[in-house]
């Protein structure tokens, strides 16, 4: 608990707002999986900044490994949580709600690591509990998937489980 500030209780209202964007997005024919990938491919380099290789090819490989890890984790969540995340990704990908929720005028594809990091930093202590929740969810999904990967263990000094 107490890992974040409990700001104004706007949770219910903002969830309605998010729901409305999710529904609107569905009507204009957006694809949930593409939206999720677009947002995650922008978020992962910001969340894992410093923990990714700098050479382009290994870096791209590490990002796609992390993306695959996040998608596996999402597939194991309950249907209700998966739906909630799908609404979030839809709302973040659609331009009007992206501008409102992330303050980002350009698309996630065009945003640089620093710009995405600024968005995340703003959400950590945002007055909308919805965005604090979005930050917490992306933080746990991305970092959990990254450090579940044995390839990262040596670097942090973890020898792995004992062998019999």
């Amino acid at each position, binding site marked *: *608990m*107490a*890992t*974040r*500030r*409990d*700001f104004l*209780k706007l*949770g219910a209202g903002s969830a309605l707002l998010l729901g409305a964007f999710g529904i609107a997005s569905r009507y204009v024919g957006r694809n949930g999986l593409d939206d999720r990938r677009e947002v995650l491919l922008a978020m992962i380099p*910001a*969340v*894992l*900044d*410093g*923990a990714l290789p700098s050479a382009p090819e290994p870096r791209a490989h590490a990002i796609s490994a992390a993306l695959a890890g996040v998608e*596996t*984790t999402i*597939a*194991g*969540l*309950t*249907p*209700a*949580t998966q739906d909630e995340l799908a609404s979030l990704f839809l709302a973040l990908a659609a331009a009007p709600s992206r501008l409102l929720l992330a303050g980002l005028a350009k698309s996630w594809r065009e945003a640089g690591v620093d710009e995405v*990091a600024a968005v*995340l930093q703003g959400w*950590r*202590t945002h007055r909308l*509990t919805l965005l*604090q*929740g979005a930050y*917490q*969810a992306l*933080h*746990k*999904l*991305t*970092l*959990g998937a*990254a*450090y*579940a*990967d044995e390839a*990262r*263990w040596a*670097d*942090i*000094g*973890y020898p792995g*489980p*004992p062998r*019999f």
Partner: protein
Amino acid sequence: MSFPDPIAEGLRRGWAVLDADASTLPAEAQFDVVIVGTGAGGGTTAEILAHAGLRVLLVEEGPLRSSGEFRMREAEAYPQLYQESAARLTKDKAIGILQGRCVGGSTTVNWTSSFRTPAATLAFWRDRFGLDGFDEAAMAPWFERMERRLSIAPWTMAPNENNDVLRRGAERLGLRAAPIARNVRGCLNLGYCGVGCPTNAKQSMLVTTIPSALDAGATLYTRARATRLIVEGERAVALEIDWLDATGTRPSGRRTRAKAAHFVLAAGAIASPALLMRSGAPDPHRLLGARTFLHPVVVSAAVFDRIVGGWAGAPQSVYVDHFLHDAPIDGPIGYKLEAPPIHPVLFATTMTGFGDEHRRRMLDFARTQATIALLRDGFHERSPGGRVELRDDGSPVLDYPLDDFVLEGGRRALLSMAEIQFAAGARTVQPAHELALPYRSWREAREAIAALPVHGQGRNGSVHDGSLFPTSVGANPQLSIYGFTARLASGLAQRLTGRVPPAPQASQKAATQETAAMQETAAPQ
């Protein structure tokens, strides 16, 4: 080296276990007692009722997994063994809830801490909630019985460094630190209790009461969701069960209706009230799902000059209760201090920040000591706990708003933990709070933490799990659930059979096997 797998052996002996992937599943089945859930409450109840000669069905939403499959990897264990892949959160996403979802429930994945219900808690329940007949003396024989059954005893090996920091820091400040009792036999001190014990040393329900109940003829359904009780008049007549599909999260469309003379709900403090809500149980005072407690936890991470290695060795082998007793029980919220296991996923998701900030914390992984405080919620009128609600799809979610009263307790706990960690020689202390920084001295930490912003009834049904308790326990709950449910199940068995049921014993044969296994592996380690 391989260890005997009591589940694989039992299945070969012909246990009555039916999984959702079976080619044929019955439309209807008949038992004396149906038990929903296979954790501390369900396992304890099943063994007592099965040995009393009753035909028992255990219904478990999670899978049956056993030691042969426990590879000590978080990436496998969390999706297979935990509720919502270990990512269950309260409604506003502020609190994570680690809860088991497999045969054995949370006992398969807990960290083995075994405390009797504190005397002060029992007295509070009697005085404020009229819970007569459950005082310390009345409960002692039930705790003793379950301690014998599950080999619960204070840990006598030296604590690992992660726990020893808590002990040393506390003692330097004149606070008493004591060893924690654990439910283990022939424990190899590996430190992987939270991802399924690979050696069956942990005496969870998975390797004790459930095999014993199955040997006595009980039936177990796995990946089977208890959807609702069918109630006629004042009696439950059947349990409607939805078998899950290959993902383990959605109903496959196949159903079984299990009829019984009696139903025991032991699905835990979130799922049991949710099942009653889905069943349309009468709830005139809107009490169903209310007063659900969590022992909310705050974490303080301290970096040392040397390797701490919190992944190895028994987790939570030392505790400090000073801050449960330094104020009246119904005063400012009290807390218990312990030292949890440190594994990469658990650590990475607990540490705050992202990018470089988080990266620096991960590079200190091996040198980090973690202390946690379990806040004793529910003892003050400003700590009413959470309320279980149903989502549109019928799944439960816990609405647990954190108010200033609880958060202020969290702040005091962060202060106590930082002081202890610096007393033990920490270089820096990092409270897990979005606005906290690594602090280099107790003086700096004291000022900064002080300034952190914090806002912040049916006739044939029984409940045998942690949702019974009117407040939090004030200690890790497993032995409280064992003791209370052993007593309730024995009373139920007597009521249903007319005889006093035998007290199940741990088998001597199993103990010999475990000791042999331990000796075989001790050498190569």
